[in-house]
């Protein structure tokens, strides 16, 4: 549950912030989000990763559908990637990589500051 909430918030953050700031700003944003929400290691990694990945791939897919442009195919050929669909997947994968590690970094920073539970059994 916590994962789904975090995934939703991470996706929303990328969608809202990214139009105004470059990708590295979004990476910082995701780090801060994890720092504040402490979703847990796995949730931070996959939530942030899929959040940014879905946001990027979704937007790229939406733009392709909206414009009907052949540019993705042309770009894919230019960079030797075959076709536009692969480029769409590459965009999603890159979003995943950037989102996951940024978000995980935030979670781990939170862990550093989390007060260590003292030896609760031994008192």
């Amino acid at each position, binding site marked *: 549950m916590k994962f789904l909430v975090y995934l939703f918030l991470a996706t929303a953050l990328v969608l809202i912030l*990214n*139009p105004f700031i*470059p*990708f*590295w700003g979004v*990476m910082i944003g995701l*780090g801060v989000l994890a720092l504040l929400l402490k979703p847990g290691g796995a949730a931070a990694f996959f939530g942030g990763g899929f959040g940014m990945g879905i946001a*990027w791939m979704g*937007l*790229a897919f939406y*733009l*392709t559908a*909206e*414009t*009907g*442009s*052949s*540019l*993705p*195919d*042309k*770009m894919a*050929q*230019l*960079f030797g990637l075959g076709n536009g669909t692969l*480029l769409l997947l*590459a*965009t999603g994968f*890159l979003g995943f*990589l*950037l989102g996951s*590690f*940024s978000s*995980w*970094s935030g979670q*781990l*920073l939170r*862990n*550093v500051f989390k007060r260590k539970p003292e030896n609760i059994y031994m008192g």
Partner: protein
Amino acid sequence: MKTFSFILVLLITVVLGNVVSIPMGPAPPVAPLLDPNHGFWQNMYSEDQLAEENIQLEGLSAPVKVAYDENLIPHIFAENEEDLYRVQGYVTAQHRLWQMEFQTMAAAGRISEIVGPVALELDRMTRRKGLAYGAELGYEFVKETNPEMLELLEAYADGVNQYIESLNDARLPVEYKILNYRPENWSSFKSLLLLKYMSDMLVGDRDLEFSNLRKILGEQKLDVLFPEFPEENDPVIEAERIWDFEPVSVVPPLENSYPNDELVIDPLPQPEEGVGSNNWAVSGSKTKSGNPILANDPHLSLNLPSLWYSMQLSTPEHRVKGATLPGALGVISGFNEHIAWGVTNATKDARDWYKITFEDDSRKSYRYGEEWREANHRIEEIKVKGQDSFFDTVVYTHYGPVVYDHSFRSDRQDVNFALKWTAHMGSNEQLTFIKLNKAQNHADYNEALNHYTAPAQNFVFASVSGDIAMRIQGKFPVKWKGQGKFFMDGADPQMEWQAFIPNEHNPSTLNPDRGFVSSANQHPVDPSYPYYVFDNSYEHYRNRRLNNRLREMNSITIDQMKELQFDDYYLHAAEALPVMLDLLGNQELDDKASTYLAELESWDYYADPNQKAPTLFYIWWSKTFNQVWGEWRSWAVPVVLPNNYQTVKLMANTPSSEFFNYEGTEKVETARDHVRAGFMEMVEAMREWEEQEGDYTWANYKRTSIQHLVPQFRPFSVENVYTGGGRGILNATSERHGASWRMVVELGNPIQAFGIYPGGQSGNPGSKFYANFISKWANGDYLNFNLRSEDQEENLLFQTTFTN
């Protein structure tokens, strides 16, 4: 442990973020490119999807309305010229920013800045030819002679710059994203530079090659193979024209003392064969409607984004429409409510070379007559992407820059040649176009042309009032016979250009009896013209086909003029093939060869896209031509070969001429041997083609392609366009060159106009307006180019109002 894992993951994140934001070899930073909010995905929008109703533009004195028709052609309605050109700059940049900047970078010799050391040789050459130097002189000239023009240039530049400032990452043209750089500011200097770039594209010379030939063959043989006028001269200005002026005279040197070096220098690149144009106008007496009709199709390298950008520019005083050059003000080839005009290249050996004798290795002074003259040294800093700047010293003499020297294109220490070129003389071509845009009659047209220096053009003219005219305009030196055909001795003051032909002596004609005027890059005049005229690149086929058709046509319609622009008749083949078939004679041939021969024999000489014979003829001719002049290639110095026309003449009239004999063989070769060898080679080449490619119809063999300005960006090019025509054909569409703009205008009331170019209004490869005209162009179809009024509603894509 927790700290450690945090630092480790943070490190990975930072490295990752860094790796995706720096270029990888030639590849651009991957994250900014793929980020769908800012990267290339944003370039998928077409212009109508980004339409804005209002745009704020500082410096306007009144609101300016821009109406885009269904083809994304902007129609600008401004209250005055300054507003008009400010918005022209803005709108052009909206659609063509990357292209206009890239072309001026090329003209300034700054491509290495963008693409790295691969372009260094190209940039050095551009600098050594002094294009930017010419534009600097042009800028000074405009500033001194016509400050009002400078204000308009500044307004245009300001429009471009306000667009650049408004650009966010998402809207940045995709080429900047791929090549990873950003636009810099535009300036009036760059507009002038662009016009110099056109000069460079259109002007060539063969002085080096002729100097070598003169030494090898001697002047007598040279005159046989390269006569100054062809047998069937059909010049731009009708041969009947009487020249009723006293020519300016010059003094020829006492004795011709050309430097007698055999020059093994890598020559400068020449304008491609096939770069040329057609234009003509027929008078009302020859048209069905009684109105004059004017047509123009400049043939240039076929590129995307297209060289041309269509526009209508209007103020309360004038409305003009046609093809503009992104970066230059006004319309270059077009029409207004009163007149229409068009241009074709009118080269006339505008570049000459002088051998320079320096006093010593410091090259600070050079011999001129009895004295030593001081030379200027201009240090060119060429910035190179990813490397230190390259510094090149170019020595300037009073003739012009020393292009060839020990550091460039020559191994010899003592080789120094300076380039004299009209493009290096202050001039204001921009003013000619601004005045033509507003011209109302023949007198206005003539006045506008007086400001035009280079590259020389044949300006065709027609008016609603019924006049048709042609004038060859440029700044032409008065030359003594033979001057500038070969490299000259710069130390001998007798070799100087002594005077220029006055504008009123430039060849021109108004309403000639034959009822039409025309030009197709052929000889400008008949030998009776009192000034010396020489150029190696004059056309021999398109002009005759065009004039023959115009002479026999009557009651002409606008559709017939469109058809004539798209005419595929291959006159060179019609003249050469019968001679070749005759020389080939009856041969024992295998099945394949007999089939080819039968196809050739039954051909109607039209190079239509679905014909097979044009391919066979084209290959047979090139193989034969190579056979005929094969021995010349073994000389290992640059020479120019006789043209197709003279070669056919020689084959037809004197098949046993000494020129057909190879001196190195015992046998005495004649034209017949070369034609037969050429045929066998053709059969062999065709066999291979059929095995590998199959279909050899003309369009499939020719493979016309319209290439992106960066040839490596192949997916942005349009390849294998199905269309006919070829070199020397009115529809001059060859592999990489052809009609870069076609326009036909009937000057009635109202004016009817049609135009098309192989490209689209948008420079963005992601837009649906990027290449949408190409299929129409390839079919010989046109777009409606009628003038629009401000309140016209039909066929509108969208409208934008610019306010201060």
